[in-house]
């Protein structure tokens, strides 16, 4: 290994300089205040968790976890997401009576280093978890809140794709008969490999009607009509229930007046096993990766010994800021440059301005090397130099 240079950071780690910090802060504030208005309460959890519990319960693949050992020899992970820690916390402490719990978070999460740039290993995520409410109203609330939060952050053009993993599972099981075969097809959808999906379906010993049903699934995208079309393909109770949930969801999203942002996508499989019902991803222009995602994960809390339905979303702040593009958030900081004689006066003036809520730098003239370069940093500078002329 070559010697590290002074300026180097571990792969995937980034600094936040003042300009970006200001943007992050304003986006964060807009989002936090919207989430709070919906009655969600923010919490914090530790950066380190046990690998055996939170690490293995999380939706993030094992090779993406940062692992280390504590002094007792337990494997620890840097939290790769916030859903699993919140599930741990809710299951062990907060969720006792079985009544719905609305929690929110804004925290850095960690994903182990990637092979190329453009993928930070640490990034900030903001999201909510609605625990203990299995109704479609909760799914609709979480999706609508995510849309409202993005709007408050200033994002205008975005699309939420909504699917239902329960529907996909029901359709596959009804036609293919067992989990193993269903899993093969599910993996093609998860890997977004439609060519492989079609080839595999055609190779299966199925009636041409059943093959058509499976192939038709790939076209089930768009508005509410996709749900109607999806209904035609299933006959089992599970399948029909999933369709009913989607209808209910669509109606609720119309009541929230956000249905215009939503597109149905029955092929959406965000994870091989984590989600259990309605699930979604959100996309925006100007950025090639999803801004965030979420969905119903009714089996996660069970891993922490307390069964409860739950749903939530997480938005990546780094991607959201990229999608927002150029933003005017230059911090308005003014400056007072003083000489020794007028130190007292300068302090008083600074205090006065600070009481008004202004951001003021107080700078002794002798501390500046290059006055021209320094003064260019500030739009407004007050010079308190030399004798005042009064008295002396």
């Amino acid at each position, binding site marked *: 290994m070559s010697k590290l240079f002074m300026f180097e950071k571990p792969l995937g780690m980034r600094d936040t300089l003042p300009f970006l910090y200001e943007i992050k802060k304003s986006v964060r504030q807009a989002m936090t205040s919207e989430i709070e208005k919906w009655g969600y309460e923010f919490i914090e959890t530790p950066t380190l968790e046990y690998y055996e519990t939170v690490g293995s319960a999380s939706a993030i693949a094992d090779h993406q976890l940062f692992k280390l050992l504590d002094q007792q020899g337990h494997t620890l992970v840097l939290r790769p997401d916030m859903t699993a820690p919140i599930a741990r916390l809710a299951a062990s402490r907060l969720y006792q009576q079985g009544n719905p719990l609305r929690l929110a978070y804004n925290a850095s999460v960690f994903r182990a280093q990637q092979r*190329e740039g*453009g993928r930070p290993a640490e990034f900030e995520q903001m999201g909510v978890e609605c625990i203990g409410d299995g109704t479609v109203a909760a799914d609709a609330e979480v999706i609508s809140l995510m849309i409202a939060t993005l709007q408050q952050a200033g994002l205008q*053009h975005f*699309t939420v*794709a909504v699917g239902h993993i329960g529907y996909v599972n029901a359709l596959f099981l009804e036609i293919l008969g067992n989990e193993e075969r269903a899993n093969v097809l599910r993996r093609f959808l998860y890997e*977004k*490999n*439609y*060519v*492989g999906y079609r*080839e595999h379906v055609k190779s299966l010993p199925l009636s041409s009607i059943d093959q058509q049903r499976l192939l038709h699934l790939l076209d089930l*995208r768009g508005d509410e009509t996709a749900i109607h079309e999806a209904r035609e393909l299933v006959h089992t109770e599970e399948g029909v229930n999933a369709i009913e949930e989607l209808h209910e969801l669509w109606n609720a999203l119309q009541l929230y007046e956000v249905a215009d942002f939503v*597109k149905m*996508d029955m092929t959406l499989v965000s994870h091989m096993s984590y989600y259990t019902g309605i699930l979604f991803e959100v*996309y*925006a*222009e100007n*950025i*090639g*990766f*999803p801004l965030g995602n979420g969905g119903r994960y009714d089996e996660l809390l069970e891993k922490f010994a307390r069964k409860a339905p739950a749903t939530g979303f997480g938005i990546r702040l780094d991607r959201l800021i990229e999608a927002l593009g150029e933003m005017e958030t230059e911090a308005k900081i003014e400056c007072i440059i003083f000489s020794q004689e007028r130190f007292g006066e300068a302090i008083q003036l600074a205090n006065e301005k600070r009481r008004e809520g202004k951001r003021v730098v107080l700078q002794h003239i002798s501390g500046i090397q290059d006055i021209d370069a320094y003064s260019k940093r500030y739009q407004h500078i007050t010079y308190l130099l030399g004798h005042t002329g009064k008295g002396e």
Partner: protein
Amino acid sequence: MVLTIAMPKGRIFEEALELLRTAGYTLPPEFAESRKLIIEVPEEKMRFILAKPMDVVTYVEHGVADLGIAGKDVMLEEERDVYELLDLKISKCHLAVAGLPHGQVHHIAPRVATKYPNIASSYFREQGEQVEIIRLNGSIELAPLIGLADRIVDIVSTGRTLKENGLVEFEKIADVTSRLIVNPVSYRMKDVQINQMVERLSVVIPDE
């Protein structure tokens, strides 16, 4: 909205262009000769970027290109998070293991030279064989001839290069054709245009 399409330079490019023209897209005739890397076709609201075949998937995954045309070999090697929407059935060839006809496989450390280290290592793992991979960037056939490796994993189209160098194909790994790939965000944000393109292309894709 303009669709940006990443095209592989070289062999696949001509065939892909032909297919797009058959699908009714009006593309300028001097297209292929140009040395420009970005070609705008405003009449069709399209922009083409010309990249190395291996890099097409990268441009599409990062979303700087909405769509791309990439060989299945590249898809298997790179495992990028993009939609593989259509098999265009052009530029047919296959991935294969080859070597000298009576070549001895090194018993302790069998070595395989390839441009596709991921495909090669997962293929041999699935076969229950542990091999050492040596990565090369081209003229892979050279490796067994001068003793760098016992076997190679490479693309075979006519088999002529293998034959002329006295090599034989041992096993076929996978069939390869070119695929239409799409960035997951573009697939949602520009769905109308992309669906239209998929429809127009599916009609003209040659049958088996």
